[in-house]
Every structure is written in C-alpha cells, then in structure tokens.
C-alpha cells in the first residue's frame, strides 16, 4: 500500500495552529473518499518547540502511522524567540524543517516558509545536497507574505494548504466547504483568498517533477473523523454516564473536556475539583447515590486515586476510571506516549485488588470497551478501568457513522428498586442485607440499594463488614466477603469468554508457528507489520490483547500453544505485559521474546518487522532505531 498513500506532515511550533489546520485537512481527505489516520507529536510547552501532525491517507484502510512520510509542510516556528547563541533552546525557527528531514522518504516533497526561515540557517542544513541524494522536491515559498497580503500572518497555514493542494493535484472543494463551516465574515473571505492565491501561484510558478499525487478512494458509507478521546467520551455517554469529576492533566484532559462540554445538554454533571483524590472520591460518592459516574487521570493523578479506588473495591461501589498513560516515571515526558503504567493500574491500592482493566487498541475499541466498562461495573459492582495512552488519546481515524447507531444503556445493573427491596433480606432492625455472604446468583454479586430508597438502609465502609455493612472482624465473615469480592472476577471472565465477542483481535496467518503479541494502542503498527510480513512470504500470526484483568487465560493459552515462538511488542522498558502473561499462565517463558520501545515515540510498522527479522534469523545485530530486542528467558 505504501506506493499509493499520502503521509503529509505539517510542522511548526506549539501555538502555530498545527492541530486545527491538520484536523481540517484530514477531514477534507476523508470527505474525498480516503481513509485517514493522524499522529500528533508535540512538546510539553505552550509556545514554541517542535510540533508536528502527520496525516496518513489511502484508499485502503489505515490503522497506524506509516514508516516515515512523503510530504513535509514546514511552517517554521513563529514563536521561537531566543536568538542568543548560547541560549538553551536557542533560535528554534528552523526546527520544523531541520528536525523532520531524517524521516522523509525518497522522492518526497518539502514545502517550507521562505518568509520565516533565515536563508543562512537553511543553507547550513545542506538541503540542496540532501535533496539531490534523496530525490526530494523542494519548494521554498514565502507563505508569510502571501498570508499578510490578503489577511493576517497567522493565516500562513491556509497558504500552506493551498500549496499542498496544488502540488498534490487535489480539488479545493472539500477544503473550502470545511473552512466555511468553521469561519465566517472577513476571516473566511481572507482565508479563501489566500487558499486560492497559493493554489494558483503554485500551479503557475512551478513545473512539477514529482510523482506524488493525492490518492483517490471512495467510501460506501458515511464517515466521521474521531480521536480515541472522543470515542471514550462517547462510549461513556452511550453507557449512561452522566457524572464526571476530574482535575486537568495531559493527556486525560481531552476526555474530561469533551464530557464537560456535552453534559450540560444531557442533564449530566461535571465537576472540576481540587485534586485527583477528590476527583475519584466524588465519582465514588455520586455512584453511591445513584449516578453512573466516572473519573480519570494520567499516571501522576491516577496515583492519587489509589485510595478511593480501593474504597470502591471494598464497598463494591460501581465506578469507571480512565488512565491515559504518558511516559514516566514521575513527570516523565508529559506529552509522549508509553505503556508503562500497566502494573501500576493493575495493582495500585492496598490489599488484594478486585478490578477490571481493559486496554482498547483503536478508536472503535475505545468506544466499545468504555461502554462495556459501564456495563460490567454496574452489573458486578466493581471498579472498571480503561487504560490507554497519549497516542490513542490524540490520534484521529475515520469510522463508519453507522457504527454508533445503537441504543444507549443507562441501566443501573444490579441496583434494586424500592419494590424489589421489599422482597430482599433484612435484619431484625430493618437494615438491608447489602453484602450477603451467598447471594442468590452465580455471579457472586449482592444486589445494592441507594440512599433515599425506602427499606434499603445499610452502611458502606472501607472496613471489612457484615451483610448489613457493619464493621466486622469475625474470621468466617472475612473469608466469605473476601472470596466473594475476588470471585466476581471469575464470573466476569466467564461472561467475557462465553457471552460476549472477544475483546482480543486476531490477524495474520492462522496456521503460522510464529506469533506477535501486543496490547492496547500499539495494535495498529503491529497489525500492519504482521500483514507486511505475510505479504513478503513469512508466516506470522498476531494477537492484540485488551483484557488486562481478568486476564484472558484461555485465549492466550491457545494462542501460545499454537506457536513455537512469540514476540511481545510494547512501549515500555521492563516488558510489563510479557511479565503479566508469564505470571498469569505460569509457563511459556521460553517462547516469549520482547520488542520494547520507550523513547517517547510510538512504534512504526518497520520497527516491528525488523524485530521479527532479528529474532527469526537469530542475528546478533543491533536494532536500527531506538528499539530494544530482548531474548526469551534462558536464551
């Protein structure tokens, strides 16, 4: 597919409007009939720094960033400010051009803003020489002046889009109509003028020698462009969630923002509170009183949620939390993805944990599994966590609109009505048996009541407790309650295995005896690598795992028994999912190798292919990128 795809990268400084420009361009490509996937790279700075968004567009399905890219629109960093030679950041204006050259493919196109970049700085890059070596086509264009002439300097993004469209022989219709949706009046008029001027000027002034053109495609059904954060928020809405409490932290803030903006029109409640301890405690309190509630954060904030999370487990309060991982430890790389909070999310909080953890692999799964999380949480009265990361949070992909056309599920699961409470067990003083030792179902779930209901009075407590919730240290009672809480996970595993479609995704050659395993947001790159390996004559099968807890023992055992060797691909330095697999299954250690990446950037498919080649050839060679191959135990 790489012959017929556009991977367009727009680079600039934080604050240059890269995000909104790329969002609209991606939509225009989608509307033209292409499948699109976006990847966002940005520093933890409000202004300046090196930022880019990459849009991959093709007629075939795209589910990952590609290997490198083929079109660079370099705007120059308009916020770069320290021209002193010894300054730490220095003059960064050139970065959007200089930092992006290494990954540009042969035959690629470079458009840079001649109006912003200093001639001497450009000369220092040996751009001409490198362009010749790589057959790059370079277009230095004064985007700034063009924008200034018809409007304001900030509109140089629009000029860049006009140049892009001309060079790719792309129709302006979709771009124009998207601009008309987003702007009006003079602003719209100026932008349209700039767009057309740039388009025509490029066509007139240059003779095109490049082969790259925008691919053509067609959608059979209507499409929507969504991010992982959108999908999680929408899964929550359709799961009946109407209460969210949170505290800002990148990248989790996206989900919090989307729900906060939508809830007022839906009778929902959003609370921004003093810290993440409060945020999770609010979600527990709201759920206790009858709302379908959620909270969430990224690693640092989630650390503060450990205690309320344990309280929800002990009091069997339904709760959904989301954890948007970023590279740690501590503040780490605040705007870069990593999958290194897995062990933390599985086990944080004192005592034996009883929680459910799902790691969605793409946009559709983010929606599906968030919805499922609400279902499971309220049915089994258990905290359910969606663990994802900065990558899935910010990447956009087109999804079939019909995918969302289904009924919402606002049900409160195993919560009783007042009518049902009349029939329920009570003690002599009228207290409701909220925490029965042996409830009358095979799920180990004791139905709950809500404050304000007649006949449902009980005490919820973080202490071990008797059936009516009274603090109780009796050993027999302890064993009953402890086992029931933990055994709920077995019931959930059974339901996931027997009554629901698998959350794991299988791909590649079913008969292969080499397996590649990954989890969560690394799915796209791994799936594409497996496809490529099979196309190139190798025989490889792949699985992306979403059920982190309860672990999919049956499915993973079958997968691992069917292969001689398996490579686990994940974005962390200590092979956390491989460790979990060995712990849960107690064997297969000799079959499992690891491919690990933790430099702040997600996997590209070629890196996974390379990992396979090293493993299979048993080669004693280094990986080319910042990726680490780790052999199986005992090798």
């Amino acid at each position, binding site marked *: 597919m790489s012959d017929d795809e556009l991977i367009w990268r727009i680079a600039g400084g934080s604050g240059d409007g890269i995000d909104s420009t790329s969002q609209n361009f991606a939509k225009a490509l989608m509307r033209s009939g292409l499948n699109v996937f976006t990847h966002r790279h940005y520093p933890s700075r409000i202004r300046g720094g090196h930022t880019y968004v990459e849009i991959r567009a093709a007629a075939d399905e795209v589910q990952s960033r590609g290997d490198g890219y083929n079109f660079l629109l370099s705007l120059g960093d308009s916020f770069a400010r320290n021209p002193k030679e010894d300054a730490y950041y220095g003059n960064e204006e050139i970065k959007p051009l200089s930092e992006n050259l290494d990954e540009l493919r042969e035959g690629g196109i470079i458009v840079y803003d001649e109006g912003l970049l200093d001639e001497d700085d450009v000369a220092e890059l040996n751009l001409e020489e490198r362009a010749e070596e790589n057959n790059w086509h370079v277009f230095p264009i004064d985007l700034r002046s063009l924008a200034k002439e018809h409007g304001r300097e900030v509109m140089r993004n629009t000029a860049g889009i006009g140049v892009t469209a001309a060079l790719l022989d792309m129709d302006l219709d979709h771009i124009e109509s998207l601009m008309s949706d987003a702007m009006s009046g003079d602003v719209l008029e100026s932008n349209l003028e700039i767009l057309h001027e740039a388009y025509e000027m490029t066509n007139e002034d240059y003779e095109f020698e490049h082969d790259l053109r925008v691919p053509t495609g067609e959608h059979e059904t209507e499409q929507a*462009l969504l991010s992982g954060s959108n999908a999680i928020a929408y899964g929550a809405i359709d799961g009946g969630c109407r209460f969210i409490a949170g505290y800002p932290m990148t990248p989790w803030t996206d989900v919090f923002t989307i729900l906060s903006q939508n809830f007022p029109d839906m009778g929902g409640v959003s609370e921004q509170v003093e810290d993440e301890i409060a945020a999770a405690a*609010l979600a527990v309190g709201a759920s206790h009183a009858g709302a379908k509630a959620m909270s969430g954060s990224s690693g640092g904030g989630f650390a503060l949620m450990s205690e309320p999370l344990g309280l929800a487990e002990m009091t069997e309060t339904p709760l959904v939390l989301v954890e948007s991982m970023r590279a740690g430890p501590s503040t780490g790389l605040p705007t870069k993805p990593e999958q290194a909070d897995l062990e933390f999310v599985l086990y944080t909080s004192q005592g034996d944990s009883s929680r459910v953890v799902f790691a969605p692999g793409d946009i559709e799964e983010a929606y599906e599994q968030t919805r499922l999380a609400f279902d499971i949480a309220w049915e089994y009265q258990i905290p359910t966590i969606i663990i994802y990361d900065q990558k899935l949070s910010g990447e956009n992909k087109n999804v079939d609109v019909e995918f969302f056309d289904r009924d919402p599920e606002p049900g409160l699961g195993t919560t009783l009505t007042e009518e049902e409470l009349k029939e329920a067990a009570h003690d002599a003083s009228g207290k409701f048996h909220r925490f029965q030792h042996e409830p009358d179902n095979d799920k180990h779930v004791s139905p709950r009541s809500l404050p304000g209901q007649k006949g449902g*009075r009980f005490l919820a407590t973080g*202490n071990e407790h008797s059936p009516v919730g009274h603090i109780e240290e009796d050993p027999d009672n302890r064993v009953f309650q402890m086992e029931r809480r933990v055994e709920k996970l077995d019931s959930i595993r059974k339901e996931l295995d027997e009554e629901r479609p698998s959350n794991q995704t299988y791909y590649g050659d079913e008969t292969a005896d080499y397996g590649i395993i990954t989890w969560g947001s690394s799915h796209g790159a791994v799936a594409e690598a497996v496809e490529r390996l099979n196309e190139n004559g190798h025989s490889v099968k792949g699985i992306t795992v979403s059920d982190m807890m309860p672990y999919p023992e049956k499915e993973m055992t079958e997968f691992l028994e069917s292969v001689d060797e398996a490579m686990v691909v994940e974005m962390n330095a200590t092979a956390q999912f491989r460790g979990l697999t060995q712990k849960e299954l107690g064997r297969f250690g000799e079959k499992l190798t690891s491919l690990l990446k933790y430099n702040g950037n997600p996997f590209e498919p070629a890196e996974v292919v390379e990992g396979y080649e090293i493993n299979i050839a048993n080669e004693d060679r280094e990986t080319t990128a910042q990726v680490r191959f780790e052999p199986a135990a005992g090798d």
Partner: protein
Amino acid sequence: MSAFNAIGEEREIDRDEFTPGVEPQPTWCPGCGDFGVLKALKQALPEVGKTPEEVLTVTGIGCSGKLNSYLDTYGFHTIHGRSLPVARAAKLANTDLEVIAAGGDGDGYGIGGNHWIHTARENHDMTYIVFNNEIFGLTKGQTSPTSPKGHKSKTQPSGSAKTPLRPLSMSLNAGASYVARTAAVNPNQAKEIIAEAIEHDGFAHVDFLTQCPTWNKDARQYVPYIDIQESDDYDHDIHDRAEAAEIMRETEDVLNEGTVLTGRYYVEEDRPSYQEEKKAVGELPDQPLAERYFDEDAEWERSYDLLDRHK
C-alpha cells in the same frame, strides 16, 4: 413518581429510630465527647423532620468515623480525610438527600484540609461536623493540627513547636456560609446548633469540641463554657463578616488559655448554595440525576446524534 420515597416522607419520627439494632452501644470510652455529637444528632434530626432513610451520613476515619455505626441512617464510612468529596458528590447526584459529613480534627483539618477549604469555598449544601478533641485518639494520642503549642505527645516529645490551626477563621475565609462551635458538655446548645446547621442552605460547619478523656487528659473538659449569644460580654452581629472574624480569632486565642467560647459565629443566609449556583448556570439538572435512572420515560441522548461535528 419518585424512586426515593423515603425522601420527604411526612410522619411522626421517634429519636429511637436513629439507634441501630446491630450495635446500639457505642465503643467510645466512657466520658468521651463523641457521645455528645451522637446525642445531638439523634435529637436534632427528628426535630427538623428527617427520617433515617432520607439522610446520608458520611464519615472519615478515627473514633469520630464510627458515628454512622451508631447512628442509623444510610451511612458511608469512607477513608481518612475524604468524607467531604464523597458527601458532596452524593448531594450533587441526588440533591434531595440530606447529607451530613463528619470526622475528627486530624481527618478534616489535617489530611483532608484541601477538601475542607474547597467544599467551604464552593458552599455545598450540607452539614459538616468536626469532632475537635485536639488530639489523634484512635492511634493513641499523637499531636493533631489543633493541639495547643507546647503539647507533648509520643510524636512531639519535647512539646509541639507549632501554633494550632484556626478552624473557625479558616472556614470563614474559605467561604463557609454557616460557622458555629459547640461542645459536648453543652447538649442543649449542641442540639440547636446541629438542627440549624442541617436546615441551613449551604455549607454549614460545626466545630464540635469533644473532650478525649483517654489520650488528652491534660486538656480541659471544655467547662465552664460561655455561649456568646447568651453572655452579656459578647454582642456581635452573626451576619457581619468582620465582626465574626474578630470574635472567631479571640475564641481561638483564648481556648488554650482555658476560656471556652461557643455559639453561632457567622451566618450568611442570602448566599445561594453551590447546588443553586450550578443549576443557575445550567450545569446541574433540576430533577435529581439519580431519579432519572429510574424514570421510564426518560429519553437518553446518544453519541450518534453528536457526530455532525466529525463529518
């Protein structure tokens, strides 16, 4: 049709209804001030017309946290310092509930201090009772945020070098719209103040002096006490913030010198509660959120109808 029919029920209420069948006898030490809070609540709740099942009592950890083990309402015994965020969310999810939060001075003024400041600032419609015994009791007598300067304990063997926290002044500055102090040794005043606090629409903070006969033997038993509303020596306007601030400061200063001042310090009746403010900006539904989940006619919005912006 409400799904919560215990709420607003009109009937005779007996104070014995608030005594649980399971453990009617508290395990607090003989002479403990905590009994005073329990008694005041059992008297005040029927007086203001509240039945056990329309009240949610949310507590923290410590001797005070056991309050809802001995007071028969819906209860949530949470974790150390976190009663307020749990309690205020329950009120937001079901605005018809009567929500009372309670905890000790370590729980509320120490580990939970951040929540206390922000709950007061936002003026959530609820009652917050702090059992203030100037000591950590359940962990056996360590210095607390309200322990007097010089107080000796196992963890401050040479005497605390810290000035005690000022609970009343802090609460006033943070934004509480009802601030009072009472004492276990003054049961009539305690009952009246608790009843007023429950009826107040906004954040009502009651600093309740509860003597600890076991771990704070050196401390005064808070007798004799002075009711600032009864005493001729004091005459401040409880609606005047500046006057309230002045007498609060004096009250906090003289407590450790042996003068126990109690009473109503500040009452702001006009200020809308957070629930009212949030409704006014359209971010809290008029119908309690919890009711909606039982409303068979409710129409649930769905994400499918939000997709236009993504097309």
